[in-house]
């Protein structure tokens, strides 16, 4: 009898945490900081693969292998347009200063198996010196944490462009506080934990470049 009680308590505890909780969709991310020949940051290149459930949902009955390019383009244009008010889920900091972003111009989209793929570049409003001697970091996240956006691997965060020689990236894992995890765990599909929840679960990419060669 006692052992049954113990089992029941354990089962109850396991269940107490996740109940229809946020996130409700996932994006596999690859990203890259773009540095021009003067070592200035011009933008962040973003490569998203949506999870198969989300993909099926937005394809609305169309089988993944039968999706028409025109429909995918329309969906992508709509999504990119909606994301404008959210800085394209991107936060960029140079030397501790948040950088404003400019509207995204153009995208690529296609199906990758069961997953919808979307590629775009978020330009910074004004290119800013970010290479040698500067501290550059950025994060790509959904502020509401409805969608969890994570890099597919440590190597999936890159730094590219003519000014990127010798530069390195480091992926900083999120360390969400307990309260945030508990809050997210209690949020169902139609609920919101506010626009500051996702930041606590964001991965940050820091870019360091070698000091100018002698």
């Amino acid at each position, binding site marked *: 009898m006692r052992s049954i009680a113990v089992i029941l308590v354990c089962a109850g505890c396991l269940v107490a945490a*996740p109940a229809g909780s946020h996130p409700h969709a996932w994006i596999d991310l690859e990203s890259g900081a773009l540095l021009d020949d003067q070592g200035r940051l011009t933008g962040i290149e973003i490569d998203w693969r949506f999870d198969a459930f989300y993909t099926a949902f937005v394809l609305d009955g169309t089988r993944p292998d039968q999706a028409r390019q025109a429909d995918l383009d329309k969906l992508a244009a709509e999504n990119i347009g909606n994301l404008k008010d959210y800085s394209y889920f991107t936060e960029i900091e140079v030397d501790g200063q948040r950088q404003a972003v400019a509207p995204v111009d153009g995208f690529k989209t296609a199906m990758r198996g069961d997953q919808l793929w979307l590629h775009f570049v978020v330009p910074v409003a004004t290119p800013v010196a970010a290479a040698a001697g500067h501290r550059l970091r950025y994060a790509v996240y959904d502020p509401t944490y409805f969608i969890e956006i994570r890099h597919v691997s440590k190597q999936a965060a890159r730094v590219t462009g003519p000014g990127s020689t010798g530069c390195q990236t480091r992926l900083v894992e999120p360390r969400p506080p307990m309260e945030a995890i508990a809050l997210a765990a209690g949020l169902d599909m139609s609920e*919101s934990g506010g626009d500051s929840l996702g930041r606590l679960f964001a991965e940050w990419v820091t870019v360091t470049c070698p000091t100018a060669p002698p």
Partner: protein
Amino acid sequence: MSDSTALSRRGVGLAVLVLAAMALAAFAAGLPDQLSWAIQNGQRSFHHLLVSAMQAIKAQGLAAGGGLIAASFAYGVFHAAGPGHGKLVISTYLATNDANLRRGIALSTVAALVQALTAVVAVGAVVWLLGASNRTAQTAAMALEQSSYGLVALFGAVLSFAAGRRLLGRLRRHAGDASDGHLDHDDHHHGHQACAHGPDAASLAGTRSLRQMVALVLAVGLRPCSGAILVLVFAEAAGLRLAGIAAVFAMAAGTAVTVASLAALAVHARRLALRLGAAAPEGGGRLGLWLDGVALAGGLAIMGFGVILFQAARVIAAHPLL
């Protein structure tokens, strides 16, 4: 048994209850960060598991169906596939109202099955029959969800009203025959006195609780679980409608296991409290009063859950990617 023994026994019982509550609260509040982060990450793995199980069926046919059923069942157990409020409402009801273990488990199981059925019917009617978009199905699901919350609030209100009326009646009787030694006549089967109208009252209470449970199942089950809707939508896109339905019911079975465990906990906790209460010196007499008071509190709590969830569901934040 002397009064002092009874008192000390009650003291120990109370201490045990308080300690148990504190342990639970500490666990909920101080769950090690690493562990809860692992649980959070586990969700992603479960989704991947479901997707690959579905893809295996597409590639190898129904022979690979066992994997999907197992994955869905596990998803149901651990993710409790949706009925977050179901768990809360059902265990609150069972802890504050008279019910036996078997009924508690039946209640949880039927509620989980009804939720699965609601998801299948909602998606089936909106998407398969009407040919509407997934977004429309989502909207319909949200409307059902909100109705469910409203009904839960109503259910709580009815429970509170009934308990309040019983409580008032008892208080009046108490005032009436306070000089009499036998204070309580229609105490439930835990009472010591075998009164003349005991059986009648018990069967009456049984019918009442059965009716309440049916209402509870309908109120809770009207809300389709979001996980089930996603699986149905995905299965449809993969051309695996039947596999999707099977997966949803496997999920419901998993959910039922989870909710039934909590229900059993609630029933046992109530029993323990009753046993301790009966050992108290003034025992049986005041017990009925306390029980009705607890039932009133439970009803009010359920009404509170319903109202809060109903309010929260009204403010649906638009998401840029949905």
